[in-house]
């Protein structure tokens, strides 16, 4: 039969559950600690403000200013969100409120396919389509000369990449709103659009914030596709047509040679630490808003 009796088995199961829980719960801390220790050399020798806000990046002569990378990352991420957020919100409202259920059944696989495409494929698509499109059409349209490898290219590719993720959450959020709430609003004489605008979006707001936060975090950390189209030039971008450089791209591009220059390894680890800290910050802000909202209304 069994090697152990019931209470012993219970104890063993319980112990394992605690161990796995502790492991999962401690991972973020371990990650933080590891990155901190690895980048300690840099943090110890330089002023933190200089590292974060200096524009000079010359690892060969010991100058590590992360500002261009931070700014590049923020530009690309925010621009991508600016493009994809309204598209996702309107699409989610349309497919859940204005079409038949059958339409959603067709949409779902399409969205999942988009979500499943490897990011390097998006990168190739960006190089072949988006980059020439920007250098030949969008640039001239605004009277700007650009190679196409730019903040805008990265943001466009990125926005397409995060759409399926945000959209899937948003659709779920809108689908879980009870039909009766919609009926209540309509029965008061609201039109379909007034109902969507004043009732459903309000009801869904915590979910919408969560979906956008999730997309933001993903966009901020995306490496491959961005690296392929952003241009990888260490310079403060003056417009969206300028090339830039992002934190994940910095790590990925230089990982192979990091041992050749003193403190280079520490610098890349510090970049990773910034990434982690920013993701954490996004998460906290998102939860803050959701909590606040839930306290106020639900």
């Amino acid at each position, binding site marked *: 039969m069994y090697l152990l009796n019931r209470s012993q088995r219970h104890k063993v199961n319980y112990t394992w559950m605690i161990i796995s829980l502790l492991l999962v719960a401690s991972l973020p801390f371990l990650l933080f600690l590891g990155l901190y220790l690895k980048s300690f050399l840099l943090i110890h020798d330089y002023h933190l403000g200089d590292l974060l806000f200096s524009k000079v990046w010359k690892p060969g002569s010991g100058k590590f200013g992360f500002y261009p990378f931070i700014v590049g990352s923020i530009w690309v991420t925010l621009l991508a969100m600016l493009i994809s957020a309204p598209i996702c919100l309107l699409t989610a409202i349309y497919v859940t409120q204005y079409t038949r259920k059958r339409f959603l059944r067709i949409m779902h696989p399409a969205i999942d396919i988009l979500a499943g495409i490897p990011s390097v494929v998006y990168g190739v698509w960006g190089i072949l389509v988006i980059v020439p499109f920007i250098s030949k059409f969008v640039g001239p349209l605004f009277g700007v000369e650009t190679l196409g490898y730019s903040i805008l290219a990265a943001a466009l590719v990125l926005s397409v990449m995060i759409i399926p993720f945000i959209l899937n959450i948003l659709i779920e959020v809108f689908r879980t709103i009870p039909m009766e709430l919609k009926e*209540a609003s309509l029965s008061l004489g609201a039109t379909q659009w007034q109902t969507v605008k004043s009732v459903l979006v309000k009801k869904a707001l915590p979910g919408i914030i969560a979906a956008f936060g999730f997309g933001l975090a993903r966009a901020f950390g995306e490496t491959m596709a961005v690296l392929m189209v952003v241009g990888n030039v260490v310079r403060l971008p003056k417009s969206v047509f300028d090339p830039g450089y992002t934190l994940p791209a910095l790590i990925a591009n230089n990982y192979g040679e990091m041992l050749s220059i003193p403190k280079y390894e520490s610098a890349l680890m510090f970049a990773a630490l910034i990434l982690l800290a920013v993701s954490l910050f996004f998460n906290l802000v998102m939860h803050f808003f959701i909590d606040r909202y839930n306290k106020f209304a639900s």
Partner: protein
Amino acid sequence: MEIEPTHKIHIENLNVYAGKQQILNNINIRIPKNKITVILGPSGCGKTTLLKCMNRLTDLYPELKVTGKVMINGKNVLDAGEDIVKLRQYMGLLSQRPYPLPMTIYNNIAFGLKLKGIKKSRELHKQVVRYLQQANLWDEVKNRLREPASRLSIGQQQRLCLARGLAVNPEIILADEPTSALDPISSQYIEEKFVELKNDYTIVLVTHILRQARRIADYVVFMYLGEVIEQGTVDEVFGNPKMEKTKQYLGGTFN
């Protein structure tokens, strides 16, 4: 067809299909004015669908096909040309569970008022107070009007929904088992309120609770499996049911 002045709603040959399945089968009902008409029947007999035909919430379910006539004030509600928004404001709806709008207590009432075109804040406030009073909720919420409606108890929420429905100034109240989620005291309150409101409104109440029907109904429509089995005054249906199915349901030997 002309509606007799004593009848508010006139339903003729109403059929509802969901795909191949027929949900409502040739419904013919007259709903008297300023009376409580109870639509009685077991779960799944089509009571709720019948109610939703009256204010065209059936539009939300594209799989439903509705034929026949629902005449209110001489107009067929089901005619495509009908202005649905105005029509729905002609009827207040109270659902099984209260679904307060995701906004403050005050705005739950003001929402419908604003839709009716009331914009001045003084007039809005006056009316909000009036309808909260009418639903006997004012004393409980007068100091917390800016709180989210979701913080109210479920009984209070249902009264808020009643006030919200009354605020668009309807002539008909459609109630779909409005007490099924409430405690006995809140239920009793809603029932008493209905009896009081019938002087000014025509009330259609869907329920499966026999005692509730007996307590407050003037007119009873008994439905089973999408058909109207029997209809008449409360004395006729409860005192002297003609159909076998009605007798069984009233006697509790239904199967």
